[in-house]
């Protein structure tokens, strides 16, 4: 019955049972976050290093709080102000970190596959907190946790994911996870933001947001990565046009089921992918996602700390 993974590198290597083990474990941890004394001694004496080589507020804070509530010692490093800024390679940085004997490294990195590279070379556990445009497993798991909490089930749910699918690690991890638990995914976004061979991802691809939202139980809006717009040549004619065709407003939301919930991984661009009235409306569970994120990350840290066998990948 023990969890068999030493690392959490993505959703792809996890089975349906693994996913449910994580969600069920998180249920047990959620209660701690509403106590007066929000701390249990589970990981006392363990050291967790949060190595964030890419900007993050929510995820880093969430992992840090999760570690602290389990009584682990958590230390944060970021690329600015560290030796990375002086030109040290990732492997050298990691080897130096490991020489200080941490038990878990939680890593975010701009390069897809960076956590996998480290997991192969280091003895400690590695938890992927987002790698490039590849995966963001803890986000997908907290999304599933929130869906199950609000809808009472995952199997058979109709989930619309709208936005920049090709650059979104949130979309990719959610797609793997939702497929594994038997939910049905519809994807929508401008053609420039859909990956090649998108039809092979196991989701229904819609050209219009209306088609994706219709009859959906869950509407997940992705952040338009404005920094990407500026860098690699524009993928959109204009934000206003994106907002008109792919932004979620109260009118479009009426197409979803009456009890549909609205999710967003944050940070939101209000008025671009989501209108303020939807973002603040009664159907949004955006802050529930943030709250559940702590419990889900506690579960991940707990499970990898006791995970015995090596992952193959």
């Amino acid at each position: 019955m023990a969890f068999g993974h030493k690392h959490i590198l993505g959703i792809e290597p996890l089975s349906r049972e693994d996913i449910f083990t994580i969600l069920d474990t998180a249920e047990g941890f959620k209660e701690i976050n509403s106590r007066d004394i929000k701390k249990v001694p589970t990981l006392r004496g363990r050291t967790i290093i949060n190595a964030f080589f890419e900007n993050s507020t929510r995820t880093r804070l969430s992992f840090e709080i999760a570690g602290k509530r389990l009584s682990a010692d958590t230390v944060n490093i970021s690329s600015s102000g560290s030796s990375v800024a002086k030109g040290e390679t990732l492997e050298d940085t990691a080897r130096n970190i490991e020489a200080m004997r941490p038990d878990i490294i939680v890593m975010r990195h701009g390069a897809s596959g960076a956590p996998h590279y480290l997991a192969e070379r280091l003895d400690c556990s590695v938890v992927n907190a987002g790698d490039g445009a590849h995966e963001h497993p803890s986000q997908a798991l907290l999304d599933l946790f929130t869906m199950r909490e609000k809808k009472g089930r995952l199997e058979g749910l109709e989930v619309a994911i709208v936005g920049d699918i090709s650059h979104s690690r949130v979309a990719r991890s959610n797609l793997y996870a939702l497929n594994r638990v038997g939910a049905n995914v519809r994807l929508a976004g401008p053609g420039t933001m859909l990956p090649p061979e998108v039809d092979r991802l196991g989701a229904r691809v819609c050209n219009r947001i209306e088609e994706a939202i219709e009859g959906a139980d869950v509407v997940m809006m992705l952040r338009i990565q404005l920094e990407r717009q500026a860098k690699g040549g524009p993928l959109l004619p204009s934000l206003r046009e994106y907002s008109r065709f792919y932004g979620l407003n109260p009118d479009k939301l009426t197409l979803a089921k009456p009890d549909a919930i609205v999710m967003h991984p944050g940070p939101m661009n209000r008025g671009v992918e989501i209108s303020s009235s939807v973002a603040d409306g009664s159907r949004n569970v955006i802050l529930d996602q943030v709250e559940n994120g702590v419990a889900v990350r506690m579960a991940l840290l707990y499970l990898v700390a006791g995970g015995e066998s090596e992952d193959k990948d």
Partner: protein
Amino acid sequence: MSEQNTVILNSSGIERALTRIAHEILERNKGIDDLVLVGIRTGGDHLAAELARRIETIEGQGIELGAVDITMYRDDLGSRGSLPVGKTDILFSIDEKKVVLVDDVLFTGRTIRAAMDALMDLGRPRSIQLAVLIDRGHRELPIRPDYVGRNVPTAREEDIEVRFDQDNRAVEVRLIKQQGRGGN
């Protein structure tokens, strides 16, 4: 590997033991003022529910009942791997309460240590008492029960199994002697 089973308590034996413990709890605490029951998952929570039913029948008044999961407080995470974490359901304040902790089998005392730590994180009880259905000895910590259903001398490698039916009522206690295998 062969198994040898002996039934130590049948369902009427368990019934009598629980009824006696319920009376002992009430006698010692002079009623149910500020008294709460907390069962340790899984097993102790079912027994705590049975004790609560008996106390209610005797006193004609309900008693607060909770359940604690001690997985997060275990001291053997490294050696056993990550066991599934259950839920702690204590929907009342335990501050200044007399808490009776209930477990099915008392063995090394490590579970009770963990459960006491879990309770302390939820508040500051006035006192904690311990009720167990079976005390099988082999303590590794200075912990003793206040209420015992049956003392059963065992060898370390033997196992005690408390069986519950589908309504979570304890129906049988067995001593299992396993040959050709070390204990746990």
